[in-house]
């Protein structure tokens, strides 16, 4: 059940959303940029050797670590660097006040404003990936360089998709799809205000959280990946008791 505090914040935040904002257009722009980029990358690839495919899991792992680092040390820490502080404000002071482990759901697509990154974020991530793509493309093979670009762009789009799945209303897909249900529970726990600054920083797959011990679960690597909604392995020494996705989505979505 949403608190008055959360309801009040939502009302204030929504009153400040520009009238022209459309969540569907927002997501469409991001995925148009991403899919176009993927098309451009793949047009430059050919005669792929089997070992060149290994670039994908390697980069996915690096992206996972980067996701953890960005979430822990930029999105949840105030930093006096232009641009980085804005990320903290948008995330800790906006996104985390709008959604809590008591109420995690969008009311409508206008609420995507407080969840989805601005479209230029993907452009920035693509630009950040170019040096690595160029260097590895030169040192190893061009296909490896292009696979790096494919993987980083693909992981960003996966991040946005998984994050949206964490904040939609309960449905069969998010409830039963492996990995999606896991991150949905994982992220709901992260939105507990006593845990949000230090626990459950991954938003795609809880790999780095398992690796660095910042998960709310006490289980192994594969247990983390396929935990689903289960609270069975919750640590006993957490600062707060996290709500689960079923509680966070209980009852009708508040109209206000």
């Amino acid at each position: 059940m949403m608190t008055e505090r959360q309801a009040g914040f939502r009302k204030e935040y929504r009153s400040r959303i520009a009238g022209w904002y459309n969540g569907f257009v927002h997501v469409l722009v991001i995925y148009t940029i991403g899919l176009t980029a993927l098309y451009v990358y793949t047009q430059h690839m050919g005669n792929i050797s089997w070992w060149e495919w290994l670039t994908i899991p390697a980069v996915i792992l690096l992206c996972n670590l980067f996701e953890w680092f960005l979430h822990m040390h930029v999105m949840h820490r105030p930093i006096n660097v232009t641009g980085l502080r804005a990320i903290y404000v948008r995330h800790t002071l906006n996104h985390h006040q709008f959604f809590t482990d008591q109420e995690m759901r969008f009311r409508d697509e206008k609420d995507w404003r407080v969840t989805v990154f601005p479209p230029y974020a993907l452009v920035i991530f693509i630009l950040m990936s170019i040096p690595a793509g160029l260097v590895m493309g030169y040192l190893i093979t061009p296909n490896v360089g292009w696979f790096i670009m494919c993987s980083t762009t693909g992981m960003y789009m996966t991040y946005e998709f998984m994050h949206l799945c964490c904040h939609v209303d309960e449905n069969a897909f998010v409830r039963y799809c492996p990995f999606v249900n896991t991150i949905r529970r994982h992220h709901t726990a992260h939105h507990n205000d006593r845990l949000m600054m230090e626990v459950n920083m991954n938003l795609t797959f809880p790999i780095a959280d398992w690796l660095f011990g910042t998960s709310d679960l006490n289980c192994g690597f594969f247990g983390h990946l396929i935990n689903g909604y289960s609270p069975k392995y919750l640590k006993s020494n957490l600062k707060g008791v996290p709500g689960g996705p079923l509680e966070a989505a209980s009852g009708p979505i508040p109209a206000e």
Partner: protein
Amino acid sequence: MRVDGGPIPLHERLKQLTYVKYITKNTVENPENGGGMKTYSGSRTIDGIKVYVDGQPLDERFDIKRFSDSGFEWTYEGDAPRQLALALLADHLGDDAKALELSEAFMKTKISDLDNDWGLNGDEIDFILSELASD
């Protein structure tokens, strides 16, 4: 003492020893300490972090030590929470050196455990400091 004979950790003692018990004990022994108590509050708002002492913004006290130039934060152990601990203690104790000395322990014990919105008064701070002293 726990049933296994071991010492009870400070954060557990703070939960068990109620604030009311402390205030009753303190008031009986020091009846003059009933008023003039400052109230500190903090909130994460849409317009930023807000921390007040008796309704006025709390000074970060960068003149004592600059742990973080990014302002206050809480609910974790780090530079911004330590700056908050320092500022709170400096204002409450009126002793900058003492505040600096106690800031890390106070940050780890209390600041790292604060919610989105929180309130503290002078008696509560004294209670925590007395528990830290006896630990």
